[in-house]
């Protein structure tokens, strides 16, 4: 079991509600706030893309190829005279949109199959969990390559592929949590009054694991974005004219000598977003870790600190353990 899953399991045990107080605590974490602000700004920019730039992201202009940065082209133009800034902004819609929909798909499928495995047991559990084992035995990028290579290129296929290869970790997590929640008194009570199994599953068990799982998937967004752009970079995403960060990078490869900045912009955009997701995810993880839960207000903590000599740490706090996603065996495979 990986560290963050362990953290989540504990969180599941304690049923830590991720509510307003937690959100306020998140806002105190400076690095997390930086991440959230960057995400917010980029999402806003993506939404407002048509108003932020007057250039068309797919309009070619052969008299204006490889033009340098200027007022009318803040990031210059590419090999076909298209405005790079416009392509980056419009590309954010696609890249982030794909990452978001893939993450949503993974979460829904993972929760559903994990719940079924945890609640029904027997054959359903065996089939689902063996499939999980088999899928986890493969590096996701290679599996994704096979699936997307076979399904064929395209936006939708790319998202489907990522969902198909990434759900197992979620299913395993959800099943573990469901097994615990199943034993709680309120589930017993629901069963006693005659609630059906699907009703118990969706009305009583699911709501109790939703919070931690959604946080887990938020933490995962950065790595999903990386998978999306890697596959797209390798040529399994959208076709050439459509602006998308991974495919922009792939297109710019041919002009490495002539105009390296064409590679820089989409690469920097992906890096910035992954970094922002990781920063924000880091803060979210702290929220989930019961060891960092502190109900005392800030001023009181400060007072106490002043009065008492700093205590020996009982163990590393979550922020020490998990700056990074350490549970991701494919971090390398993606490299």
């Amino acid at each position, binding site marked *: 079991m990986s560290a963050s899953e362990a953290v989540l399991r504990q969180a599941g045990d304690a049923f830590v509600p991720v509510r307003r107080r937690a959100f306020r605590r998140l806002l105190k974490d400076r690095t997390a706030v930086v991440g959230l602000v960057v995400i917010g700004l980029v999402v806003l920019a993506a939404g407002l893309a048509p108003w932020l730039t007057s250039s068309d992201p797919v309009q070619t202009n052969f008299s204006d190829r490889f033009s340098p940065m200027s007022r009318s082209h803040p990031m210059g133009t590419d090999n076909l005279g298209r405005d790079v800034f416009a392509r980056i902004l419009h590309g954010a819609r696609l890249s982030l949109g794909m990452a978001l929909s893939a993450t949503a798909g993974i979460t829904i499928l993972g929760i559903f199959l994990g719940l079924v495995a945890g609640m029904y047991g027997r054959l359903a559990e065996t089939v689902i969990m063996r499939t999980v084992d088999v899928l986890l035995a493969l590096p996701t990028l290679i599996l994704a390559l096979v699936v997307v290579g076979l399904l064929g290129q395209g936006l939708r296929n790319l998202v489907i592929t990522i969902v198909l290869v990434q759900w197992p970790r979620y299913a395993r997590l959800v099943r573990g949590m469901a097994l615990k929640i199943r034993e709680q008194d309120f589930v017993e009570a629901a069963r006693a009054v005659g609630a059906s199994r699907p009703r118990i599953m969706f009305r009583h068990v699911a709501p109790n694991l939703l919070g931690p799982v959604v946080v887990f998937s938020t933490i995962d967004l950065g790595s999903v974005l990386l998978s999306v752009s890697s596959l797209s970079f390798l040529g399994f995403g959208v076709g050439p004219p459509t602006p998308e960060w991974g495919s922009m990078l792939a297109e710019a490869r041919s002009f490495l*000598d002539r105009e390296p900045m064409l590679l820089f912009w989409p690469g920097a955009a992906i890096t910035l977003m992954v970094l922002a997701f990781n920063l924000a995810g880091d803060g979210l993880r702290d929220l989930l870790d019961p060891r960092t839960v502190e109900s005392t207000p800030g001023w009181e903590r400060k007072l106490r600190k002043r009065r008492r000599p700093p205590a020996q740490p009982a163990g590393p706090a979550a922020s020490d353990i998990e700056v990074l996603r350490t549970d991701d065996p494919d971090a390398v495979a993606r490299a």
Partner: protein
Amino acid sequence: MARYLARRLLVAIPTLLALSFLIFVLVSNAPGDPAEEYARKRAGSQQPTPQDIKDVQLELGLDRPFFVQYGSWLKGMVTGDLGQSFAKRIPVYDVMRDRLGPTLELTFASVLLIMMVGLPLGVMAAMFHRHWSDQIFRIFALFGASIPGFFLAYVLIIQLATELKLLPVAGRQGLPSLIMPAIVVALTPVAVLSRLLRASLLEVFTEDYIRTAKSKGLGSLSVVLRHGLRNASIPVVTYAGTVLGALLEGVVVTEFIFAWPGLGLLTLEAISQRDYPVIQAAVLMSGIIYLAGSFAVDALYGVLDPRIRLEAGLERI
């Protein structure tokens, strides 16, 4: 321990069987017909006739019923016959053997880099806990884990290859061409490993035996290296196992960018050429490497920490 490991090995067999079946189903049901593709390639500029396609099907054995195909493939796998590559018309075994060397080279170089940079960084970060420099390690690790390999690769290529002309842009010509791919592959593991080691060391530092070692008057560095490191190594070894597995399977994106002729690039090529036998063999090999890796890590636990006894059930830890 031995019994536990033996059982683990036995359990791996059905997993591998299921894996092989899954791969076979996946590949066989893919849209697009490899026979048609090869017939077209062979016919050159002409359209292949239906008879041409049939001939190719017959030749590749694609005309047989699904389970017959699977059965003969599986038999081949068990007896060590990986089949013939559709695209290259030579045994898959030879194709893969040629690519194993470059992958091993890259793996070795990256592992060396990860150990030489990641371990000292982790130890330093743990020793400087609560010092301002700890923040620097943290930021480095965060960046290291966030920078996509392909971005770093191009930053390096632009700086070191096209601008300064220090290293070759791509390809595999001796040691210099190995440097950039190894850096790209090692960056994320270095970041993650150093963080893991730091966290693990900090936890170990609170143990009694560390206090004992300190009170004996040992210097802090030797306390860390002699008493801390081994006890902190379990999460590091776990992670190192997955990294090693991933590296041995071939790093697709890095090999693609640097035109490094390893197993990752082979998989990518096979997929775009619909070279079924090669895809199947590569994926199955990945699965075997993964299972072998997690097996090796489990076996190492007992060596590193004799308190761990893995006799109990087969639940994954």
